[in-house]
């Protein structure tokens, strides 16, 4: 059955919708793209779509097939108009029916993103002033119809000398790459989270290889202490935003690459929408919270994720394929350890080449997946020790991980939901918290409690034991308190991952004392 149609006449939505009805369907989702009256500040009066029809149809069919296979939906169809259209006309229609709404939403989103990205369809805009202009509907063009969900990203097409043409001959000569592989790279959209020690080699190699779109996330500015390992930057760059520096570096290295920058860390409420715009994500931060968030979003959106991290002279690498039955980060370590236990480059030190090696390995794993090379997506934990030159590959048994707690999807959804909640609660007096129905849990150690006991009745459970303590007999939301609010925040997060409605007293008892003094 054909699943993609190029239509020269107005689309009869009701007929297409009815054709997707299925007795096993519990959810239907559709997307309509309409002709808008303005683009990039210019008033548009209408437009004409023109397609390379044979290729558009075969690639369109492929996109819809991929969505059906990937998300397990029952029926799907996409219709794209060609010819002259007026303001308000329907330009593209997508319908998906599935057993459950989630697959329908995700498949619908996947199809529109891929259609806009991959199909050889151009539009000629007619402006009010009589001008016309051809606009490619591929690549960066998606910015002009649907705005980015988090509003803090932007695309930059920084132009290098117009005479430059990338020469990929050294890699296309490889039998497993060739022109077909190069086309796959050009069509690929990869998100790199963190433009630091790991991110520098990842971004450089992927840009050099001709990956079509690179998203770069980093909220930091360059510091002098970064330069020993972050080899894309130099001393003149100190104080500038890394996303801007990285975008400039990519533009200089390979102007054929489109860069999209995100100057704030990704947040739990928008990360899945960002991931849905990319084919693959590489996590390169030094932040365990970011790594777990990326893991959860990757699992939920079905986006492959390449994780790596370093410690002094060694590193770890894990590919999360996000395929059912394959292990994720939480299959190995279900909850992040407290930041104090995991260590960061700032606290424990690192030698520059260590993230260089691990980031290079991440770039390699990325290219293997994008090109479908042998060994791609191996779901093992790789340990690399650069002092003694040893390397271990430890296969991960997915059956003993999240599978014991409802599966990666369930675990990831629970964690992402928990991360969306603002768990920090502000009180001037713990009596108010009790009046609001909170069960107060003092997570300080026994000697701290002895030195300064709480003025109200509370449970006393040290933070290190909170996860194993039987809290079931206590009903109501838990308010965890410690001296500064740090231990209680981390403990509340861990409890939430176990389904407990836990909150943390922001600023801890120190803040309570301060407010009492002020009063």
């Amino acid at each position, binding site marked *: 059955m054909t699943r993609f149609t190029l239509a020269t006449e107005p689309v009869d939505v009701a007929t297409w919708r009815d054709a997707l009805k299925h007795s096993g369907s519990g959810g239907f989702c559709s997307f309509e793209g309409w002709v808008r009256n303005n683009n990039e500040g210019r008033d548009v009066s209408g437009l004409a779509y023109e397609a390379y029809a044979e290729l558009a149809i075969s690639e369109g069919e492929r996109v819809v097939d991929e969505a059906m296979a990937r998300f397990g939906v029952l029926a799907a169809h996409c219709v794209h108009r060609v010819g002259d259209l007026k303001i308000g006309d329907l330009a593209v229609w997508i319908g998906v029916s599935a057993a459950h709404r989630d697959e329908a939403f995700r498949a619908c989103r996947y199809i529109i993103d891929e259609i806009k990205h991959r199909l050889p369809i151009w539009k000629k805009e007619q402006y009010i002033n009589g001008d016309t202009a051809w606009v490619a509907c591929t690549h960066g063009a998606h910015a002009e119809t649907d705005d980015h969900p988090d509003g803090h990203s932007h695309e930059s097409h920084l132009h290098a000398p117009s005479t430059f043409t990338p020469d990929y001959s050294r890699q296309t000569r490889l039998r497993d790459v060739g022109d077909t592989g190069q086309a796959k790279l050009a069509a690929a959209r990869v998100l790199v989270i963190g433009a630091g020690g790991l*991110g520098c080699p990842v971004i450089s190699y992927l840009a050099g290889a001709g990956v079509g779109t690179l998203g770069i996330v980093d909220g930091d500015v360059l510091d002098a202490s970064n330069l020993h390992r972050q080899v894309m930057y130099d001393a003149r760059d100190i104080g500038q935003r890394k996303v801007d520096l990285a975008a400039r570096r990519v533009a200089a290295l390979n102007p054929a690459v489109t860069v999209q920058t995100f100057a704030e860390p990704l947040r739990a409420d928008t990360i899945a929408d960002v991931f849905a715009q990319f084919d693959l994500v590489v996590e390169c931060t030094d932040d365990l919270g970011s790594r777990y968030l990326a893991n959860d979003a990757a699992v939920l959106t079905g986006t492959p994720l390449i994780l790596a*991290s370093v*410690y002094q002279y060694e*590193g*770890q690498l894990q590919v999360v394929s996000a395929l059912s039955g394959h292990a994720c980060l939480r299959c*190995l*370590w279900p909850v992040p*350890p407290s930041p104090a236990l995991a*260590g960061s480059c700032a606290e424990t030190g690192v030698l520059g080449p260590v993230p260089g090696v691990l980031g290079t390995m991440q770039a390699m794993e990325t290219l293997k997946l994008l090109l479908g090379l042998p060994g791609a997506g191996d779901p093992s934990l790789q340990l690399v020790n650069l002092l*003694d030159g040893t390397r271990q590959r430890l296969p991960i048994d997915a059956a003993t991980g999240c599978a014991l707690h409802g599966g990666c999807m369930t675990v990831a959804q629970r964690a992402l939901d928990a991360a969306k909640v603002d768990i920090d609660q502000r009180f001037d007096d713990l009596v108010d918290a009790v009046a609001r129905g909170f069960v107060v849990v003092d997570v300080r150690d026994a000697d701290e409690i002895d030195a300064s006991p709480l003025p109200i009745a509370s449970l006393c459970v040290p933070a290190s034991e909170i996860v194993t303590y039987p809290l079931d007999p206590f009903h109501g939301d838990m308010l965890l308190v410690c001296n500064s609010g740090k231990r209680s925040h981390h403990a509340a997060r861990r409890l939430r991952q176990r389904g407990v409605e836990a909150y943390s007293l922001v600023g801890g008892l120190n803040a309570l004392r301060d407010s009492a003094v002020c009063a």
Partner: protein
Amino acid sequence: MSRITVQYYAQLREQAGASIEQIDTAAATLRDLYDELCGRHGFTLPTDALKVAVNVRFSDWGRAVDDGDTIVFIPPVAGG
């Protein structure tokens, strides 16, 4: 008594002061072994923050320690 090889990564390597050592132990399970090593090296990480692998396979903390095993303790690390 079992003679085993233990390998450490990241913080554990630092706290143990070595990446590999051979020891004789009477520990019955991996959990007992880790408790014993905590006493010897002052490890600060609890077992629920660690993975353990035996002979290049991830393993359960309840697994018995056998003569000749190569045991690896792996914490998650954060640097980037």
